């Protein structure tokens, strides 16, 4: 049977080879670009290299990442447990509004932050009941969560403030770690909004839960083979409720971070969340359900966004409207090259113990 182990490793390598190959190619390409930029600082490569290695780009990417990455972590919890939560966008919206509203009323940013998380968690709990207890189609219920939040937050804002946009409130500010903040490039990691540190913590905790705790295993089993978990004597229903609620908490942190970082909720059109919840789904699919992978893919996307903002300033000859869509185009191209995203086996399915 020892060859089974060999198979196992072989399988592992096989499974990840496309991604590994891709990651390798990317790293090689970036290195090549940096070298070219160093040699010809005035060329396009030089500009790009300068932008990429700039501490400011990293800082911007981090800021843009926060809401997306939080939501992506939440999405991982739900989907790994077998509940596809396409309503992340709605959770972000409701928490973004809730956080600002409560901050405005109480004057406490952190009170507002918690309130945003609570709002999102309540909505996620509703989603959980609807999908788990009432066996609603997860996709439809997720869309409903999005639509409800998309209507409710601006509605409330309109009722309370007579405008879909709230007034400005206090913001989170930023925390700098002495000495470390002066590091070249990586200094950006140590002079950032408290929500950035929270995000690092959340990424680590999520990773820890999945890799090291029994609960993490139950979530995985609940999404891959709920019956195996059930017959092992663990309630699939409880695990799924817990996972969806955690997804509400995490997405809530993302939404609250988004609005409190700017000190305002804006509710016109798609609201200030503006598709970040859907990008989060992209991020975790892309990161193959791994918290760290999801974080890195968010950073890739946010990094591209940050880079396009800077590139617009450089006047490199490409029309702005087109520079702006580069992040989306890159995601499509990368996806076409990397290909398959593997959903958990039982994701989307209802599970009942009897009949």
């Amino acid at each position, binding site marked *: 049977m020892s060859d089974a*182990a060999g198979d196992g490793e072989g*399988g592992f390598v*096989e499974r990840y080879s496309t991604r590994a190959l891709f990651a390798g190619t990317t790293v090689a390409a970036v290195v090549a670009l940096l070298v070219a930029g160093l040699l010809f600082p005035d060329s396009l490569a030089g500009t790009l290299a300068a932008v990429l290695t700039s501490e400011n780009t990293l800082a911007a990417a981090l800021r843009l990442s926060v809401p997306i990455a939080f939501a992506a972590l939440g999405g991982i919890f739900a989907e790994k447990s077998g509940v596809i939560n396409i309503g992340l966008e709605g959770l972000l919206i409701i928490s973004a509004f809730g956080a600002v509203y409560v901050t405005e009323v109480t004057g406490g940013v952190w009170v507002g932050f918690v309130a945003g998380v609570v709002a999102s968690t309540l909505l996620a709990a509703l989603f959980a009941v609807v999908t788990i207890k009432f066996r609603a189609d997860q996709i439809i219920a997720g869309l409903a969560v999005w639509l409800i939040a998309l209507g409710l937050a601006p509605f409330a804002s309109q009722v309370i403030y007579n405008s879909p946009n709230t007034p400005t409130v206090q913001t989170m500010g930023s925390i700098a770690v002495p000495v470390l903040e002066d590091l070249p490039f990586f200094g950006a990691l140590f002079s950032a909004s408290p929500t950035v540190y929270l995000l690092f913590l959340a990424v680590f905790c999520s990773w820890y839960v999945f890799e090291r705790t*029994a609960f993490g295993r139950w979530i995985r089993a609940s999404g891959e083979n709920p019956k*195996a978990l059930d*017959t*092992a*004597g663990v309630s699939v229903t409880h695990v799924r409720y817990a996972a969806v609620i955690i997804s509400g908490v995490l997405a809530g942190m993302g939404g609250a971070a988004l609005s409190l970082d700017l000190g305002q909720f804006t509710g016109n059109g798609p609201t200030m969340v503006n598709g970040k919840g859907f990008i989060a789904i992209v991020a975790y699919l892309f990161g193959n359900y791994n918290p760290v992978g999801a974080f890195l893919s968010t950073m890739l996307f946010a990094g591209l966004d940050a880079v396009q903002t800077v590139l617009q300033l450089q006047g490199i000859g490409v029309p702005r409207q087109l520079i702006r869509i580069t992040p989306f185009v890159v995601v499509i191209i990368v996806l076409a090259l990397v290909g398959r995203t593997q959903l958990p*086996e039982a994701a989307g399915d209802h599970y009942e*113990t009897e009949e």
Partner: protein
Amino acid sequence: MASAVHLDGITKRFPGVVANDDVDLEVERGTVHALLGENGAGKTTLMNVLYGLYEPTSGEVRLDGEPQAFRSPRDAIDAGIGMIHQHFMLVDPMTVTENITLGNEPRKWGGLAVDRAGAREAVVELADRYGFDVDPDARIEDVSVGEQQRVEILKALYRGADVLILDEPTAVLTPQEVDELFDVLDELTAQGKTIIFITHKLGEAMRAADDITVLRDGEKVGAVDANATSQEELAELMVGREVLLDVDHGAADAGDVVAAVSDVVVEDDRDVRAVDGVSFEVRAGEVFGIAGVDGNGQSELVEAVTGLQEVDAGEIRFRGEDVTSTSRRERIDSGMAYIPEDRQERGLVMEFDLVENGLLGSQHGREFAPNGRIDWGDTRAHADAIIDEYDVRPPNADAEAHSLSGGNQQKFIVGREFERDPELVVASHPTRGVDVGSIEFIHERLLELRQQGVAILLVSSKLEEVQGLSDRLAVVYEGEFIDVVDPDETTEEELGLLMAGERPGDGDGGGGGFETASEAEPAPSTNADAADGEEA
């Protein structure tokens, strides 16, 4: 002394079905008890009641004389019951250790982390105690079916099971692995465990069990001593009438070559060679059988022939033409019928009714869809004809496929494929999970077609089936044909050895599997003669 397990008057009703009707079952400690019955007799349901998955409508479960009220498997597990389901309850991407300890993970740091080293150690220790050969770090999706089964048993033992329920444990094993399993069962009973295993194979029940309980249509129809019964008696109890245990297929009258496969190589999703250079021919009017343990490339070979999987090297000819890279649709149109091994995934669209399912594969044909427009009238008539001819029950073309029992689903597929007027029938496990009566029927039909000059390619992991029906029989192992034999001239033991990868003339024993068995010689079958009809 009270029996270890006592089920008293268990009745379990589902909407419209009485799965168990006042069933009694008594199992002595330290014995092996076989639960025998046709498909749908209620065996699994009864065991699910014992395991706490279902609450009985009425009746009582007693362990060592103590009445139990299981509300969930957790209660049953706590009471020392372990169950190995027909479909393994394993999480594919997780490791052997993770699966065994699932739900009962040893913890450290005040429960904040799984004690992974401890878990692994516990698994290794347990495997050693019972002499199981498993790799604690392998992922389930990467190990053999036999090993998965051992993992399932270990899982139950890990949770302290005293009573082990095995649902059709032998369906997926080679004869050698079956022998090894039975040795393990002996070892377990010797250590005081109690075993209940479900089967519909008479020979197995007699060989491995101490006592046998027979169910029919949800009712208990008999409890017999395994040493004091005969296959005929059991068969009659099971089916309720006398059963012909032997198929006589007469001499082959082979004609022209219909299908020719040469040096075909097929790689699976992970670029591993699943079929590794196989060649053979199937002639009109003959059954060419392929025997082998599941997972040795049969599925890939069959799907390559039928056009569902790409061929990476080699050539497939059908009616003299090279069809290696033609589409599935073209192969259907040119007269290739295919009974797939997985009827619920491939063979039927479960949400469609039988009218729509009768059209599957012919939706572009002249007959039912001239000019691309489906003639639902003709299609319905076609479905009705199949239902009638092949005795599909209930005889209602508007029934959705998922509402049919497995046997009836299979009969419908067989009917649909046979009615295509095929020149070649590729039949993959055509009777898997089908009850005795239907098996008889399907076998008869296959032989009828053969008589009419149709070429038949038959794949089955049931030895008695391929052996009984085939005119020529190839044994496949790890993607290669190990030998092609005359099935009438070959014993079951010889076939079993071939299936385990022993090339003819190769003396070395041990094809992997249970350690306890590695030095044991192939267990002598008690009744080699009856082996042919074991299934029937």
